[in-house]
């Protein structure tokens, strides 16, 4: 296992994962630096989503470990990993579509405040002043309406809502799985703007993306995944110039 370098928030160390005979990930070793936006690109089936699922505890790797903030999080449950400071935006927005926008946003705030379990059945939700104000502020920031039923939002709004939910927890690491998939050019651009704004706040992000326009607008560093292996790793310029990458991915 490669030693963790300085400023590394997330160290994905020598991960192997196979399903049956299929090697989804082999020898994947990645270091994500504090405050950077790290993009992982690669063709379909390259293992990007598998990698993300390993990080958030949905999948357990066969060998290797994920180290977050100096602590091994492999084998921990998703909620423990989230409580440690990792939030994730999914490819198809995972929101509480039966609930209102407000409820969607206050839930993660409560999680941050109360931890993974708190028994307070007699407390009044409407009396949670701080959480309430924080949620309202975020909702306004994201241009949403608190009383809207979230299930009937447009796809773009749903994605924004999910992002707001993740940000409300002030995570140290935000994982984004194709945040602009299926979006119109207009929505994509406004999402890029949004993410750039977040970037200014210094939050570390790992982003998986197909859209090169998005990747090159946001990423400080790019890793290229193909057939479960990392074939290139570097700044956007380095990666762009890498002949292997051009052949395997960009060139086509």
């Amino acid at each position: 296992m490669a030693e963790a370098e300085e400023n590394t928030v997330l160290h994905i160390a020598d991960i192997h994962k196979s399903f049956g005979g299929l090697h989804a990930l082999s020898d994947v070793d990645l270091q994500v630096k504090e405050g950077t936006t790290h993009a992982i690109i690669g063709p379909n089936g390259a293992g990007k989503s598998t990698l993300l699922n390993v990080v958030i505890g949905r999948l357990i790797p066969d060998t290797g470990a994920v180290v977050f903030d100096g602590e091994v999080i492999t084998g921990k449950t998703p909620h423990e990993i989230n409580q440690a400071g990792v939030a994730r935006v999914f490819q198809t927005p995972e929101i509480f579509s039966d609930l209102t926008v407000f409820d969607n946003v206050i839930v993660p705030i409560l999680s941050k405040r109360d931890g993974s379990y708190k028994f307070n059945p007699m407390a009044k939700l409407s009396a949670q002043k701080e959480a309430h104000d924080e949620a309202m502020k975020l909702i306004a920031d994201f241009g949403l309406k608190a009383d809207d039923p979230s299930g009937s939002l447009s796809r773009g709004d749903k994605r924004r809502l999910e992002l707001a939910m993740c940000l409300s927890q002030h995570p140290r690491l935000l994982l984004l799985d194709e945040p602009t998939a299926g979006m119109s050019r207009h929505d994509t651009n406004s999402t890029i703007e949004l993410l750039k704004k977040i970037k200014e706040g210094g939050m570390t992000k790992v982003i998986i993306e197909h859209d090169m326009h998005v990747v090159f607008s946001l990423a400080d560093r790019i890793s290229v995944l193909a057939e479960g292996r990392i074939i290139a790793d570097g700044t956007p310029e380095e990666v762009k110039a890498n002949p292997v990458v051009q052949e395997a991915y960009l060139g086509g």
Partner: protein
Amino acid sequence: MTKKVLESELFIMLLFAGAVLTMPLWLAPIGAGYPDLMQKFAIFGLFAIGYNVLFGLTGYLSFGHAAFLGVGSYAAVWSFKLLSMNVLPAIFFSMIFSGIFAYMIGFVSLRRSGIYFSILTLAFAQMSYNLAYSVLTPITNGETGLQLTLNDPRILDAASSNGGALPSPTLFGLKMSGFEGFYFCAVLLIIGFFIALKISRSPFGLVLKGIKSNQTRMKFTGFNTRPYLITAFVISGMYAGLAGSLMAVTDPLAGAERMQWTASGEVVLMTILGGVGTLVGPVLGAGIIKYFENIFSAFNDRSLHEVLAFLPDGMENIVVTLVRPFVGEGWHLTLGVLFMLVIIFLPGGIMQGIDRIFGKSKKKKAAEAAAATARMGEEQHG
């Protein structure tokens, strides 16, 4: 009145308490204003409210809640037999035992979700029922049901011989049969309703709703959903235990058939019929099913003619002929037809019908539509 007032806890509680406490008045014209049936309304209302804490908030469909009702009843009757005819220890032990029992079953069953969870709870309840009916007869008195006897120890009730007759449950001397029993149950129903209202409006309740809506998201939002689910399961189990103990309080007998899957199914039907996830719906559903069971089943040719005597003779006979298959021994048929009609035309149960009559803001309708779409999605993902 403003929306805020209408939705305030105080207003809701006043309305609910008022409706419950005046039941003897407004139920009398429809023949349901006698103590036993009103006690049943309150008891099964509590059962359904508690069930709704689990099913309505978390979406976990338990098919074994009757087991907790049964445990509550047995615990209460044993408390009457061993300790005292006072109802308070009986209720206390019922809730404790059903809570423990619910914890054990919930701990295991909640390892699974969806239909698997349903079958697990069903299996546990059926095992409890089958054993209570046969092998556990020393504890349950099997088919006959656990009853009080004259030579029970009752160690806390010193030498009240009661003239050789069986004692009845009391609240510090106040007998728990008839209207006193009803008001006792009614007060507990109101308290139970209040707690359920608080739960559904608490952060804890919101987490449960989040679990129902999207458990994956809850996990990735940092919630450990399992203890939440177990807590909800135990709470609803304790409600069931309370209901079971009240059955024993108003009528000191505990029978095994209380635990049968049909009894578990009944509370599911009550909840869906009234409106899953609504506060009042389960109480309404419970009332309707119990009303059918007790009043519709009691009609016979003679009583039908009496009720319809105001009609002209020929008309009366026609109406009686038409109605007859649906009452008396045919009351099940009415219930079956009712289930189908309600669910076909009012997917949200009777509460949805009430909402429709009184109208509601467009926003809520949109929310419902959205929820329906979301459900569809879930179904397809399966």
